[in-house]
């Protein structure tokens, strides 16, 4: 028996968050935002026809993550140096903890600046919760733009009146 074709294509993965996860999916004529709370998923849909523009607001998410991981790395680096200069052999355990902390710090830096993205509609701004990095957001919006412009074009099929 052949499987039914998937209706949605994933655009973004869930950014790290506590308690809930949001992801964005491309549908045939709408965007689907999925908010998952572990045992339940909520679906929000945004028709391509309703989107007038996108707004990218610079956010401090990257700074906060850098501060969190940076502080932890500084403490671990201090512990590592203390162990090293105390002369009881090379502190591999302290170093491994430090490296474990430096990986997310570097990863956060490499992912680039953070933003909050809103799709502007005639009614209200619709927050796209899973787009949190500017580079990723611009890539997704570049991918979506031709679809949206096609839907807005006068030749696009409209519901029968």
């Amino acid at each position, binding site marked *: 028996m052949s499987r039914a074709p998937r209706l949605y294509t994933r655009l973004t993965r869930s950014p790290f968050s506590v308690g809930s996860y949001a992801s964005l999916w491309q549908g045939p004529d709408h965007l689907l935002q999925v908010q998952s709370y572990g045992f339940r998923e909520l679906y929000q849909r945004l028709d391509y026809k309703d989107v007038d523009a996108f707004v990218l607001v610079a956010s401090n998410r990257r700074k906060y993550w850098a501060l969190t991981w940076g502080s932890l790395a500084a403490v671990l680096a201090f512990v590592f140096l203390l162990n090293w200069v105390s002369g009881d052999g090379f502190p591999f355990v302290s170093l491994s903890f430090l490296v474990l902390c430096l990986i997310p710090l570097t990863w956060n830096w490499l992912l680039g600046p953070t933003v909050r993205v809103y799709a502007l509609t005639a009614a209200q701004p619709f927050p796209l919760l899973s787009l949190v990095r500017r580079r990723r957001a611009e890539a997704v919006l570049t991918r979506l733009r031709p679809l*949206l412009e096609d839907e807005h074009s006068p030749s696009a099929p409209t519901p029968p*009146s």
Partner: protein
Amino acid sequence: MSRREGLACPTCARTEGLEWKADTEAHCVLCRADFSLIPLARFSRPRPVARPQAVRVDGEAVCYFHAANQAEKVCEACGRFLCPVCAVPYTGRLLCPPCIKSGREKQETMIPHRTLYGNSALALAFFPLLAWPFTCVTAPAALALAIYGWRQPRSLVAPGRSKLLLAAFLAFLQIGGWLTGLGYLLFAVP
């Protein structure tokens, strides 16, 4: 006033504090947010507004919901006559508000939420292992949930049943462990 000038800050929703640095770059002096606008082609075009013909014409059909409005459209689900205010374009069809409400659970493109039985069953099968005596209750419950969830509607975006299978497998192992232990106590211990 152009559409850009009437734009509200997406963070604080106020229009009076925006300072435009360039065509698409702005700063809100009230909430100190910097943002970039990515307009689509129709952003600057005026939007058509649906208005009913308020004057009722004798002999013509009227809207099912607004007796004062002349009907101009028909709901594609129930066939009610509708004025342009009540005819809502929804997922490629023209529907009336009650049909949108009643059809939400039937069409895949209208479903508002889904319960993830796979996650629930897996959590019920896995987490009680940390306090294993509770598994005598939670393992059968996890198995029952996995069986119940097998026929239930699944996630729209990840519709697999692997978590249900894993939960059932874990629950079987735990039930098997309990049965083996009980059997040992009953028959092997003198």
